[in-house]
């Protein structure tokens, strides 16, 4: 089954043409990694998939829901859709006034309308999954960057999403904290979750991705198996990019 179907999507911010005709499919259970230089439109595409940004042209179908150009980002059906799509941000975006436990359980209670006790049970289980059972009553600013990002992943997993979008989730972390986050991510990927991941971590991409899409200047200029794209890229742009990374 196709989980995400993107057709000829265009998106501009004023004069800046960020997405210039992106088409790609993601099947259920697949982990697709998006790589490419900054400014190539990777994050914008991810934000368009759960419609935090409206698209200008083309169409996106996510888990059966058709997203069309110029829709309002606050439509009721989008709230329903976002319930099923997890999003993990580069800068975590935890709610700073809530403990780790409340960060994870809040949406369960008010969006999924699960009773408080059961919601907390689920939240504790999810925090356990990311190795943070002992931190449930800590506030975000009492946690390291890596721990915060793991709480963000738990917050996302708790909603039992059909698809998870991850936007450079290790880029804001110190090198020694990246590993703990990627380990969690690899485990989620192995569990059969459908994921679209923007990352610069080559090792992770090789080990966990089913496919890599290489973005350049608002287009996908290469697409294929990780080994093939990273080690024997066809285009000069991709070659230069991967050489710089290794």
């Amino acid at each position, binding site marked *: 089954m196709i989980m995400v179907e993107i057709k000829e999507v265009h998106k501009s911010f004023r004069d800046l043409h960020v997405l210039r005709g992106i088409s790609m499919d993601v099947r259920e259970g697949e982990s697709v990694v998006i790589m490419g230089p900054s400014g190539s439109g990777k994050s914008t595409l991810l934000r368009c998939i759960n419609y*935090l940004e409206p698209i200008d042209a083309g169409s996106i179908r996510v888990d059966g829901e058709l997203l069309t150009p110029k829709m309002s980002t606050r439509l009721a059906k989008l709230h329903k859709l976002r*319930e099923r799509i997890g999003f993990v*941000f580069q800068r975590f975006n*935890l*709610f*700073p006034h809530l403990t780790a436990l409340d960060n994870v359980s809040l949406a369960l209670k*008010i969006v999924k309308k699960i009773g408080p006790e059961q919601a907390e049970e689920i939240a504790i289980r999810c925090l356990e999954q990311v190795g943070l059972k002992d931190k449930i009553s800590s*506030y975000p600013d009492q946690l390291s960057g890596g721990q915060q990002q793991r709480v963000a992943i738990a917050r996302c997993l708790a909603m039992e999403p059909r698809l998870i979008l991850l936007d450079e989730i290790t880029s804001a972390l110190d090198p020694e904290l990246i590993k703990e986050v990627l380990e969690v991510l690899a485990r989620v990927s192995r569990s059969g979750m459908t994921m679209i991941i923007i990352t610069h971590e080559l090792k992770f991409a090789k080990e966990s991705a089913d496919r890599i899409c290489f973005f350049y200047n608002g287009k996908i200029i290469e697409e294929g198996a990780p080994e093939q794209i990273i080690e024997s890229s066809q285009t000069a742009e991709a070659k230069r990019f991967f050489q710089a990374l290794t």
Partner: protein
Amino acid sequence: MGEFARFGFNDLLYLVRGAYTTIQLCGIAFLFGGLLGIIVGIARSNHKITAFRWIAGVYIEIFRGVPLLLQLIIGYFAPSVLGWDISVFLAVSIVLCLYTGAYLGEIFRSGLESIHKEQWEAASSLGMKYFQSLRYVIIPQGVRVIIPSIIGFLVALVKAICLVSILNVVDLTLAAQRVAVRAYVPLLAMGSAALIYFVICYPLSKIGQRLEAQSKRSEA
């Protein structure tokens, strides 16, 4: 020192009744003006519906741009010109509510806008609707930011309410004036009124400082 001899218990009682009126007006203005301010603040920070933003903007600018004394005088005369039969107390209460709504609306707007766009996005990415995001994510964070401004406004409001004395509403200031004239105790009457104002305002500032310190601690 003859003033002390002339200043009786009834005079003191009269002052306290005046203070009660001041506090009453302040409470009414803060409660209803606060509710109005919440609506205005949300409308003002809503970037989707420009009409709301515009109307709220005009309202805020009018009530912040015209002297409160003038607003009170207009509020005093307008009902009788329009043929409405309402008491002076009600008329000044309404003016004070509108005045407070404008100031608090602007403070609430600043609080809402101090919260980064990413918090809105995190909330919507979890499927929360606009008012759910406001209620559970944005407002709890914004409140911490604006507590000092709210307390500051409240202290200023307690003192600004003395303007109603011009319209013969016996607040603390007018009560003090009357006592001063009636018993000829100008210094004692005004001094007592000043002390009562201080007793009302000082705890407010203290509460504000404590709340501010508390919210700083929970962020640290």
